[in-house]
């Protein structure tokens, strides 16, 4: 929200909605069902850009299985997330490796996203206190600007500033901060689509503020909601198949 807008809002005494209510709507809209997503991630590095293709099978909030499809060097690499545990399989070593500890803070495939970001599955309302601080416009859509402050200790980002579409209930822009107030990551949605009765961000740019480069563009090529996913997919045995 720009400064003038904020002052006008303050002078008019306009009512801002309750932060928890906005967050509840957001969580309800983004609540996961079973879905199969084919996506592309273009990493704009300091030297060159690379595009990595992947297919993900997602069940509920805590189980997902991802297979990287391209480029050839990454093809066949798989990742399995079960609750708060993450395993990866690399065909070149034929090893299943558990990603834990400080490795979770490492970048996924050189992108601006970390494994911690990938592991995030809790609803925002469960781990943050929200306060609506104003209004703004993103992608020509009216948004509530919310400041989220962690209500639990084990979160990757102590506070966040999110721009939530007032009627579509999706996040269109986000800044993530550390406990010191340092900006760590930004996200900006470039495109949204209405799919299977809900609004989905289909193209977004993530940027690690501590990293050089022009960020990572994530786009959804196809998404299938309420898909039938066999249980064996979410097992370590599936990693080697």
């Amino acid at each position: 929200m720009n400064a003038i807008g904020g002052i006008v809002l303050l002078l008019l005494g306009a009512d801002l909605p309750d932060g928890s209510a906005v967050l509840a709507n957001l969580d309800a809209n983004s609540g996961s069902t079973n879905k199969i997503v084919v996506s592309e991630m273009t990493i704009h590095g300091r030297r060159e850009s690379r595009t990595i293709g992947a297919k993900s099978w997602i069940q509920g909030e805590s189980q997902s299985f991802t297979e990287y499809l391209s480029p050839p060097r990454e093809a066949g690499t798989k990742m399995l997330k079960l609750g708060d545990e993450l395993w990866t399989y690399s065909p070149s070593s034929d090893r299943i490796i558990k990603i834990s500890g400080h490795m979770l803070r490492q970048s996924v495939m050189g992108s601006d996203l970390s494994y911690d970001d990938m592991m995030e599955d809790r609803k925002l309302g469960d781990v943050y206190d929200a306060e609506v601080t104003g209004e703004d416009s993103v992608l020509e859509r009216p948004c509530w600007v919310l400041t989220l402050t962690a209500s639990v200790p084990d979160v990757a980002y102590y506070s966040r500033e999110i721009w939530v579409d007032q009627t579509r209930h999706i996040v269109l822009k986000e800044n993530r901060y550390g406990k010191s107030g340092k900006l760590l990551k930004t996200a900006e949605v470039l495109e949204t689509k209405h799919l299977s009765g809900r609004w989905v961000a289909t193209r977004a740019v993530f940027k690690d503020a501590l990293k050089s480069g022009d960020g990572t563009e994530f786009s959804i090529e196809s998404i299938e909601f309420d898909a039938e996913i066999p249980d064996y997919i979410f097992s370590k045995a599936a990693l080697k198949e």
Partner: protein
Amino acid sequence: MIRFLVKGLLRDRSRSLFPLLTVAIGVSLVVLMDNYLRGATDAMFQATANFVCGHLRVTTRAYARAGADATNELALLGLDEVTAGLRRDFPDVTWTPRIRFGGLIDVPDSAGMTRVQSPAAGLAVDLSEGSPELKILRLAKSLAAGRLPSAPGEVLLSDDFARRLGVGPGDKVTLISSTMNGSMAVQNFILSGTVRFGVSAMDRGALLADIGDAQQALDMGDAAGEVLGFLPGEGYDDRPATRLAAQYNAAHPGGDEFAPEMATMRTASGLGSMFDLMGAASALILAVFVTAMGIVLWNAGLMGSLRRYGEIGIRLAIGEDKGAVYRSLLAEAFLVGLAGSAIGTVIGLGISYYLQEVGLNISGMIPNATVVIDDVLRARIAPGSIFIGFLPGLLATFVGAAISGLGVLKRQTAVLAKEFSG
């Protein structure tokens, strides 16, 4: 006259031997101290050169700017061409590429699942037969168990690290790291042996791989983080290094942040102020030592003249001119100083040469050293070593005799008879 004085000095040992020995010992100690301090400083910086940055380092500009945060995303591409150019333009310098990388070492159990995992600091160098790295990193000497890698896919781990992981030669370990593009790199290796560098930072968790294996694992074909250059001879010399770096950088102007850039050890290591401090400290230690030795030699000159108080009195009493006596004292002091300084310089240089070429092995005194230190004490002779002891030795003896001899001019011939009668 000179012949007469030399004869006098040779025949009267008390006039020559003690002052000569004093001057020779003092001068030899000054020469030895100068060369030893230079050698010790060299040894300290050489360990940094060998393990960290070489005497010269060629990287991309971005890699150099990033300093300790440099990643292989900023590596030098076209490595073969860069290295060939360096070897052609600077044939006296030994050039060798290296890749540094971080990651995890994962040790599988019998089912192939993670048994233990620990962070590792990776260093990839040319481990092929005849590679200069074998000598630079003293690998054969550092080997604690097993053997050096001789086939692709073999690596070394630091001995402490291997013990902590519970692995030994022949075991399989998996490196989890990042490619130069940032993707996850997972590669299996066979542990061929373990090494003990005597450098705590490396002994804590180092993995040493052949550069070819690292290039393959980290997707760095024809790329390396850095190319290190080692000047001929043992020590680092900032002047030629600065000249070569300036020459290289002048020949590679323009370009983007990924263009190659050469830096000297002084700038690449971030030890510039340490270099200055060590230089100043060495100069201060040497100055104090030279001054102390000067005072001793001066005192020896004074003692020599005072001891001959009676002899000088008789010479004056029988009619020898005061000026002639004074001049003969100075000439004798000059001869003693000249001979003593020459002998002292030769002895000091001789011992220094032995320490420079052979060294003194003190490994038995530092069995558990955990700092970057060479276990062979060495000295380094520099052109200035010839004068550092010689001039103070000659001057101090001469000045000592000149001041004490002033008494000759003050003595009254008329009271000499009274002095002797007493």
